[in-house]
């Protein structure tokens, strides 16, 4: 009997898997409730590189503070750390409250910062850009459920690095993968709303087709527990109609699988993202993507939005299908194959895999033809620094947009 109990225990204990999303149970909005909101001008004036005087174990030696997605985010090169802040003003003091998360592991906690009126708060409220040393952020952070374990002191050092030509920081799967335990599911509407707060100014999203021909945002060919809550539906996503998927299937954050049109509508109206890479999966006819691309490009024009939607061409089959489109030369496309195929498809973008290296000669040749070059999917800090320093790319696709944002803006 003991043997039987041992066996059954072994079987059951081998089956556990934690899928908790790793951010603190904390609403930073409560900290600044009742305060006057900071204007975009004040938050833009706060942008910059700050030297970390205290708090180095968490933040490293320097951090990037960036106004993005309608709020302030902090990026660090140490452990791909990011912080989302809510902000407010009381008298002459500016308050930031938020949570931090290291994306290379599951460490997270609460961080609170203030800028006293006499330590730069006054000049920032007048919208003046500080000089080095003129702004001090003081506060504390804690790990996990603990608060105020260590003090933080940040000193304004210099403005953010900006190139003449905007650099594209593209968030993979609308922000990152489910395995990164982000606050929302990959390829979800909730995550695309957060993409800018991770430092991204563009996203890549994956398009699949339902049984009734509706393009939806979902990475895999099959329904599975990596991407959805347990629902009882099995098989390929293309075996179900959109109505069936809406009835039974939820993403890990509880959201339904978004349609391509809904995702683009959210990007267009609720974000300032300027680039969308449609990664077309084999089931999706490019003619359908082209229609959607054209419609939303027109909408972006009407709304006065600087938004470019490109169709990804990942393989020869999609290239052949693309070339059969009657207006392929007018369609904005991104080709992942060699430069001859880029020229043949008249793609505006070339996107070589990052493992091929910086390829500066080819990149320069493509740029001389008026094309832009993006590297994918680059997550490793050493290579990110190397590609930014030695490469000539116009953008990088990554699961860690906060890390790219840190290394790019702190150049």
């Amino acid at each position, binding site marked *: 009997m003991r043997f039987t109990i041992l066996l059954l225990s072994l079987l059951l204990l081998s089956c556990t898997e934690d899928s908790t999303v790793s951010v603190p149970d904390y609403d930073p909005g409560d900290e600044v409730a009742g305060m006057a909101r900071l204007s975009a001008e004040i938050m833009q004036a706060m942008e910059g590189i700050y030297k970390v005087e205290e708090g180095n174990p968490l933040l490293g030696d320097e951090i990037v503070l960036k106004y993005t997605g309608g709020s302030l985010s902090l990026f660090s090169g140490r452990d791909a750390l990011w912080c989302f802040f809510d902000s407010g003003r009381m008298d002459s003091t500016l308050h930031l409250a938020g949570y931090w998360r290291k994306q290379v592991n599951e460490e997270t906690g609460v961080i609170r910062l203030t800028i006293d009126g006499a330590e730069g708060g006054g000049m920032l409220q007048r919208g003046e850009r500080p000089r080095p040393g003129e702004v001090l952020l003081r506060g504390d952070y804690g790990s996990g459920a603990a608060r105020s374990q260590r003090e933080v002191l940040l000193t304004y050092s210099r403005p953010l690095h900006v190139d003449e030509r905007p650099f594209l920081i593209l968030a993979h799967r609308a922000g990152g993968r489910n395995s990164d335990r982000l606050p929302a599911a990959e390829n979800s509407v909730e995550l695309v709303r957060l993409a800018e707060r991770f430092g991204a100014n563009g996203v890549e999203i994956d398009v699949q087709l339902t049984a009734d021909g509706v393009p939806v945002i979902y990475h895999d060919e099959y329904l599975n527990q990596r991407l959805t809550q347990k629902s009882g*539906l099995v*098989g390929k996503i293309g075996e179900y109609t959109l109505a069936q998927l809406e009835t039974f299937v939820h993403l890990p954050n509880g959201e339904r699988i978004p349609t391509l049109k809904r995702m683009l509508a959210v990007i267009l109206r609720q974000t300032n993202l300027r680039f969308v890479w449609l990664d077309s999966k084999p089931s999706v006819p490019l003619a359908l993507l082209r229609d959607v691309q054209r419609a939303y490009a027109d909408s972006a024009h009407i709304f006065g939005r600087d938004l470019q939607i490109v169709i990804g061409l990942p393989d020869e089959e999609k290239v052949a299908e693309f070339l059969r489109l009657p207006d392929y030369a007018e369609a904005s496309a991104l080709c992942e194959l060699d430069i001859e195929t880029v020229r043949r498809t008249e793609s505006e973008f070339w996107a070589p895999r990052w493992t091929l290296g910086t390829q500066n000669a080819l990149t320069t040749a493509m740029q001389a033809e008026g094309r832009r070059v993006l590297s994918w999917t680059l997550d490793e800090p050493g290579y990110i620094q190397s590609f930014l320093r030695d490469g000539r790319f116009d953008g990088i696709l990554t699961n860690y947009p906060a890390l790219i944002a840190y290394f790019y803006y702190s150049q």
Partner: protein
Amino acid sequence: MKAFPVLPLLLLLSAAAPRLSGQEISLFPDSAAAAQQEFAIGLTLGGGYSHYFMPYDAPIEIDRMGGTVNLRLMLYPDHRLRMGIETGWTHFYSYALEDIETSFGVTDASLSLSAIPLLAVFSMPVTDHLQFHAGTGGYFVRSHTTSFGSTADVTEFSQGWMGAVSWIWGEWGTLRLESELKWYGATQFDDGVLILQMQGGCNILRWQK
């Protein structure tokens, strides 16, 4: 359920082997009794109750109880490690939903998930009455849904495994009666059921070398 504990099961079976009592089981050949060089093919047919034992994190009530039937065909060689195949049908879980709001309107919906196992099974008796079984292979998992007045049936293969312990109550000629406690695990969607069933076995072919 990323782990696939058939190997630990087999290791445990192996570890248990030296402790075998060596008592003879009359219906099927058993090398522990004597060097008989007898072989047989046995058929076991069982049925009973299944209970879905895996977590279901979505905020709905599921019906975890259901029925199961299965058939096991085993080769009994002149040693104690027996091998064969198992198939059948088992209920995993089902649920019904009311007034689900979608962009297509409001609907009632229901779902039933079941599976047909197809497993290679290894068995070993540890006493006159007690046997352990472990299997590897897969399940044809079938999802049957109803919504908006229409149904959909989709079947998908999932890798999987089984582990079981059975107790022999008695033997009558070429027949015997057993109870079995069994785990069916389909890995793709982390599905698993605990099964309690009665089963009858018979020796359909026997020969001697």
